[in-house]
């Protein structure tokens, strides 16, 4: 859906989406990295199960919530992608570490 502006110099950053290997660019937020990888929805809401995707990209709407390295409900647009990050789309309510 989204296409990057050409920026050949950017460093590649490997990470995983739901366990699958993926790649994005240094400086991407987690939300941007998901969109660049064609992820259409990143979570289902906890009560009605409606699908959601990153929307405002500036920390306001909370639609971009994902699980990052095992911690749920993190705002993907507010977290910078790091090499090796485990990003998981989130189905409903976050975990509580039981």
């Amino acid at each position, binding site marked *: 859906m989204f296409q990057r502006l050409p920026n050949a110099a950017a460093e590649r950053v490997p990470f995983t989406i739901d366990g699958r290997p993926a790649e994005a660019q240094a400086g991407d937020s987690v939300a941007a990295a998901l969109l660049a990888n064609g992820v259409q929805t990143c979570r289902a809401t*906890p009560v009605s199960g409606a699908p959601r995707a990153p929307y405002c990209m500036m920390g306001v709407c909370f639609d971009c919530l994902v699980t990052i390295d095992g911690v*749920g*409900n993190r705002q993907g647009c507010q977290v910078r992608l790091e090499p090796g990050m485990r990003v998981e789309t989130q189905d*409903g309510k976050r975990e509580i570490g*039981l």
Partner: protein
Amino acid sequence: MSDLSGSEYDVAVVGGGLVGSATAWGLARLGQKVALLDEGDVAVRPSRGNFALVWVQGKGLGMPEYAGWTKRSADGWTEFAALLRDQTGIDVAYDRPGGFFPALSEAELEARAQQLQRLHNQPGVVRYDYEILDRAALRQELPFIGPDVAGASYCPLDGHCNSLRLLRALHAGLQHSGVAYRPNRRVERIEARDGGFRLATGGGEVGAGKVVLAAGHDNIRLAPMVGLDAPVRPERGHIIVTEKTIPFLRHPVGFIRQTDEGGVMIGDSFEDAGLDVGVRVGVVSTIAERAVRIFPLLGPLNVVRTWAAQRVMSRDGFPIYEQSATAPGAFLATCHSGVTLAANHALALAPHIAAGRLPQEFDVFSARRFHVPEAA
């Protein structure tokens, strides 16, 4: 929002919070023609900010009749919730898994045990089961308690609901049964006239044969207009709500409970308020810290909202129900546990108001108990 002038009702209920709504709902069920006069959205109302417990244990030390009244309401809640669901399609998520009240030291647990024993030793008090669990027994029930938890009291009669949905269901039910709900109609004055009442609001005057004062904090001002007395004061309570998380806790555990939708609510001390007057925890960080000591797994959760609301508290913490001696069609109803007692207000109190007389069993709840001379 039509003009009210000239309208006549069997009963005018003043206040559309939990107490007024439940009572009006019960009156309408009995075929009474009811007007419910309420303020607008800016009103001070604990009915929109409470903790949603239907709670029995520990209530009634100093007034055994209150223990019985509370138990009766909790026992009526299953039927009450079913009636609301059948009428409105709204599920208020009432669940009665039993409640724990945790103690963070042996001394706290001992004090709790003694307090419950004193309560249950009162002559004439209603009988029901409760238990004191030590740490090992409590861990069988709640494996994820923190190392500081010494034990808990447990009562199978305790439960909880979704209290915002309760208020919504009541209002949907009121509409369904033809009650004239009028928001933005603060009652300024009430006058007893010709065996009935005239209620003056900013939007016109209403006439009614009977009047029920359920205006929360404003009952103080309204009650003397019809020969009643409502010595209540506000008592602030705080609540914290976390983000929604997978279900891990079905039981209400004192001031911690997980809602049907997954958020965890953390409040300050809510029950035994009659004994705890003066004890104000008040500070959000203190209640959060205590909650994390009880359930360390709450620690990483994000808080999404905190708020404070004002309880409507009588001097001894017990409800006031009273019929005016000078204007006998006027009734007063106020309490600090409007969720717990909603079933009673709808199913037990409303029929007496419809009949026009509070029976003798309500004498104990009269505000006359506060009129004892200071130096008797």
